[in-house]
């Protein structure tokens, strides 16, 4: 909508504009807009509890009453349910309105316990604030209030205090409409109405934290924040979540220099105010006492604390020695978890040292070439008539993108055509979901796109392919071949690349990606396993835990002489490193990050780095100095400026050192095309099961295992097969079985799962108890396993 100033001359009349007056002032509204939404653009605040601009209106609380002029005189309407109309006259503060507002508040407070002094919401509570601004000040209610058991845990994270609940339907509406997890519901009736889960079935939604954020009272509270701080001693700054590449906008809140809470910020292009629970609560890991707080160096008795100067000197010595045998004997792995500036500083250092072997993906992503295909933003994706999913399960890996795509499908803006090796979180919302056995996707995509029904759908408008890696147990080329088939059929399709690590897109753009014909992470590790790498530099990466082929990476680490790690924790890869440099964590440093659609936005420091931790970029410049290299920057600003002038993709944020809120899109030019290729299908013998290995939201990621509120939710390892296949093997659901390939096998429980197709088996990656990686071999195209009863 274009808002035009009615007093200006030569007004272009927009047919969607509706003229109304609110408190005698002219207001321009959009056709179909609600009065409350139009009023939100003026200075006249209408009090409300249940209305939420990102959800449908329900008119539950009646706090938003206003008067509208009618032929029979002023009439009271709920402004969150009444759309604007041409010439409408709205008054929000007449005596009648005030009386109504006071009446509603008196009723809402009748049963409210008024335990504000011990309530987490006190100080930032809409009920408190509006009782003060719009309430009667006194209550005539002298009867006993309704009583319930004080907070009950409705999930591992969320507590519900039913006495405080004002039944606004925000949490239940969110769970149903936005998250698609209607696991909480209003139960009973009248005076007994209360929000509850089904008995003994927790509110285990990946998005439960949002209900806590939008509850207008202190009825819903979250374990990580309960009794931790009060709003008036909280300090906060706006930032961007980097736990995955969606890049949700957040406020980072701290109290006494400790992180206490993240809240979602509503920006149109990305997260609409929502966050996933992992992104919202894994800040606990920053506060963890296990954090590295000082440099460590290898000694006879393991890693020992040392000073920065000694640590940097020995790191420099190691690198210098290794470089003496040629630039190819040093490699850098990682860099996708930091800021753009961090990655740029390291890439510059690598440039100067001639190190070309670098990769910020660990063999589980896709070639950076996909960034050179015609790109779509999240908004463009969710406005496309067809969204083709050739991606991992978005609900598990890119949770808030799942919310956006689900919304597009639910509101019938887009139709989802999904290609997937197993049922995903979006399968129930897909217009068509087409399954394939890993390795056969290109063929399946081709055949599907040839059908008339699909072709008609494709012709209806824009097509965006959400592109990522659905299966870690198959060669990445299968996904690219399938993409080739899509482009063959739909040459003007756009791509929304969904790689997983927070800032992978930025890291690739600044050059933490294979250079000049040198190989990717897997090639680097293969070389290392052959003894050709002398020094591995780990930039916030943990290949021993993260690379799918555990055998390869173990051999690589055995043969690599020295390891230098820049990290926030001790992990499996740096436990025996030569030097470990402690890095500043999220919220301890400032910079910019790039999300999956190439949106550059800022991340901001809110707390002092623990111990002597330093941001990665600073470590790079100082290590440079120890190596006799001057990167020519002495501050973050200088570094940022250098980055924006050196890297063409970042030119869009030059002269704009702090990229707030919506951020800016990086410059991308569609220079690549991808074409059809002939694919060799790998046959599966009918006694084996083709493996699908993928990640879920809560796995053994360090930021999850070091967050006390999340660690308990991590799923235990299991393999999932179709119930009919389970019957065929003849084992009971839930019992242990042996899964084997060639001479290797693991033992773990098997579960029947109707979302896994016959002949395949789904093995979630990196769960607790059993390491599944022995089954994975990066050199084979697909992995077929045997499943046998234990004897």
């Amino acid at each position: 909508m274009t808002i035009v100033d009615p007093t200006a001359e030569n007004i272009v009349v927009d047919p969607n504009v509706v003229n109304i007056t609110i408190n005698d002032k002219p207001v321009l509204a959009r056709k179909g807009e609600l009065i409350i939404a139009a009023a939100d653009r003026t200075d006249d605040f209408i009090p409300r509890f249940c209305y939420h601009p990102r959800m449908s209106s329900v008119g539950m609380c009646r706090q938003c009453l206003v008067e509208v002029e009618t032929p029979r005189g002023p009439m009271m309407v709920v402004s969150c349910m009444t759309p604007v109309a041409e010439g409408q006259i709205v008054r929000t503060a007449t005596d009648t309105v005030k009386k109504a507002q006071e009446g509603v508040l008196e009723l809402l407070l009748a049963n409210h316990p008024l335990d504000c002094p011990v309530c987490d919401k006190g100080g930032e509570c809409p009920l408190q604030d509006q009782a003060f601004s719009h309430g009667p000040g006194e209550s005539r209610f002298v009867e006993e209030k309704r009583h319930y058991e004080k907070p009950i845990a409705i999930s591992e994270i969320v507590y519900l205090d039913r006495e405080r609940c004002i039944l606004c339907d925000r949490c239940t509406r969110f769970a149903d409409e936005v998250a698609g997890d209607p696991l909480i519901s209003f139960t009973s009736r009248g005076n007994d109405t209360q929000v509850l889960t089904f008995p003994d079935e927790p509110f285990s939604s990946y998005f439960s934290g949002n209900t806590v954020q939008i509850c207008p009272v202190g009825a819903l509270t979250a374990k990580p924040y309960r009794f931790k701080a009060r709003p008036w001693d909280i300090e906060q700054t706006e930032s961007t979540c980097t736990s995955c590449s969606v890049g949700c906008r957040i406020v980072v809140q701290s109290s006494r220099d400790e992180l206490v809470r993240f809240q979602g910020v509503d920006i149109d292009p990305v997260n609409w105010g929502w966050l996933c629970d992992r992104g919202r609560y894994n800040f606990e890991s920053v506060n963890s006492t296990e954090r590295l707080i000082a440099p460590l160096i290898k000694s006879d008795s393991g890693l020992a604390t040392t000073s920065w100067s000694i640590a940097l000197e020995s790191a420099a010595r190691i690198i210098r020695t290794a470089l003496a045998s040629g630039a190819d004997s040093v490699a850098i792995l990682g860099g996708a978890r930091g800021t753009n500036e961090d990655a740029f500083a390291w890439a510059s250092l690598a440039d100067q040292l001639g190190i070309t072997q670098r990769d910020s993906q660990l063999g589980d992503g896709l070639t950076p070439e996909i960034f050179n295909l015609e790109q779509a933003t999240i908004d463009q994706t969710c406005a496309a008539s067809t969204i083709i999913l050739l991606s991992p399960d978005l609900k598990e890996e890119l949770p808030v993108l799942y919310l956006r795509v689900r919304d597009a499908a639910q509101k019938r803006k887009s139709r989802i055509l999904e290609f997937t090796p197993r049922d995903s979180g979006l399968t129930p919302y897909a217009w068509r979901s087409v399954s394939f056995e890993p390795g056969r996707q290109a063929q399946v995509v081709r055949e599907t796109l040839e059908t008339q029904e699909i072709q008609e759908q494709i012709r209806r408008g824009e097509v965006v392919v959400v592109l990522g890696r659905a299966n870690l147990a198959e060669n990445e080329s299968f996904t690219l071949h399938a993409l080739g088939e899509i482009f063959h059929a739909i040459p003007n399709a756009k791509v929304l690349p969904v790689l997983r690590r927070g800032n992978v897109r930025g890291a690739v753009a600044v050059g933490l990606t294979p250079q000049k014909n040198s190989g990717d992470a897997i090639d680097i590790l293969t070389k290392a396993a052959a003894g050709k790498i002398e020094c591995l530099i780990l930039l916030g990466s943990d290949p021993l835990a993260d690379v799918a082929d555990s055998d390869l990476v173990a051999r690589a680490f055995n043969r690599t002489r020295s390891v230098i790690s820049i990290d926030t924790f001790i992990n499996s890869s740096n436990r025996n490193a030569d030097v470990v440099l402690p890095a500043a964590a999220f919220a301890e440093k400032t910079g910019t990050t790039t999300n999956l659609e190439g949106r550059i936005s800022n991340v901001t420091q809110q707390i002092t780095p623990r111990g002597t931790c330093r941001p990665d970029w600073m470590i790079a410049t100082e290590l440079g100095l120890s190596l006799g290299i001057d990167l020519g920057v002495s501050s973050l600003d200088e570094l940022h400026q250098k980055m924006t002038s050196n890297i063409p993709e970042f030119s869009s944020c030059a002269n704009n050192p702090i990229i707030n809120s919506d951020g800016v899109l990086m410059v991308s030019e569609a220079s690549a095309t991808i074409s059809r290729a002939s694919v060799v299908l790998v046959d599966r013998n009918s006694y084996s099961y083709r493996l699908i290995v993928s990640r879920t939201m809560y796995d053994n990621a360090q930021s999850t295992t070091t967050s006390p509120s999340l660690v308990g939710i991590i799923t235990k390892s299991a393999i999932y097969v179709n119930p009919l296949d389970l019957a065929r093997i003849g084992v009971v659901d839930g019992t242990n079985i042996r899964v084997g390939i060639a001479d290797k096998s693991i033992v773990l429980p098997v579960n029947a799962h109707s979302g896994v197709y016959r002949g395949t088996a789904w093995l979630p990656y990196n769960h607790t108890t059993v390491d599944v990686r022995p089954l994975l071999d990066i050199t084979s195209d697909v992995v077929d396993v045997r499943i046998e009863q234990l004897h």
Partner: protein
Amino acid sequence: MSRLTDKNLVIAKEIIARYPRQKSALIPLLHLAQEQSGYISREAMVHLGELVGVTSAEVYGTATFYEMFRFEPIGKYLVNICGTMSCALMGAHELMHHAEKRLGVKAGGTTQDGMFTLAHAECQAACTEAPCLQVNYRYRLRVSTADLDNLIDDLEAGKLSEEIPAHGVLAKVRQHIAPDRGVGAVSPELVDQAPAWLNGKAAL
């Protein structure tokens, strides 16, 4: 206690087929579950959720809205004695005391043998015939203490089983809609169109 039996599952599927959206069948299905066990068990709610494609929490939310759905085991006969004004004036309290003594349970309780649940009720809209009670929602009017004794004797002896089926059974003759008269599953886009068998004769 249990999920729907195989026999009831067949009926449930027939009921579901009548509606354009599966979840619209939830209330009749809750009645079916209540008919099976006299009350609605958790397992039954889980089962109904699976059948119509909603979460157990949604089934629970819907079911608990209605007073006549019960979620704990209940007697074969639910005796609701009205205690509102007209009935109270005409001796409802004495009737209740008598019933409590006769059945050996307080109002709200269920007899050991699982035959009777005694309960207070609000006005049952038979004030002119006070005092009144209902057994499984079947009226008994102008009830004296002697009438009550006789009623309980008859129920115990099974003499009224024709008239008053066990708690949860709505009617002895089940409504049956021929399959071709059911609307059946309709894709969401078409839900506002009239069913085919109406032949365009009437709008929905």
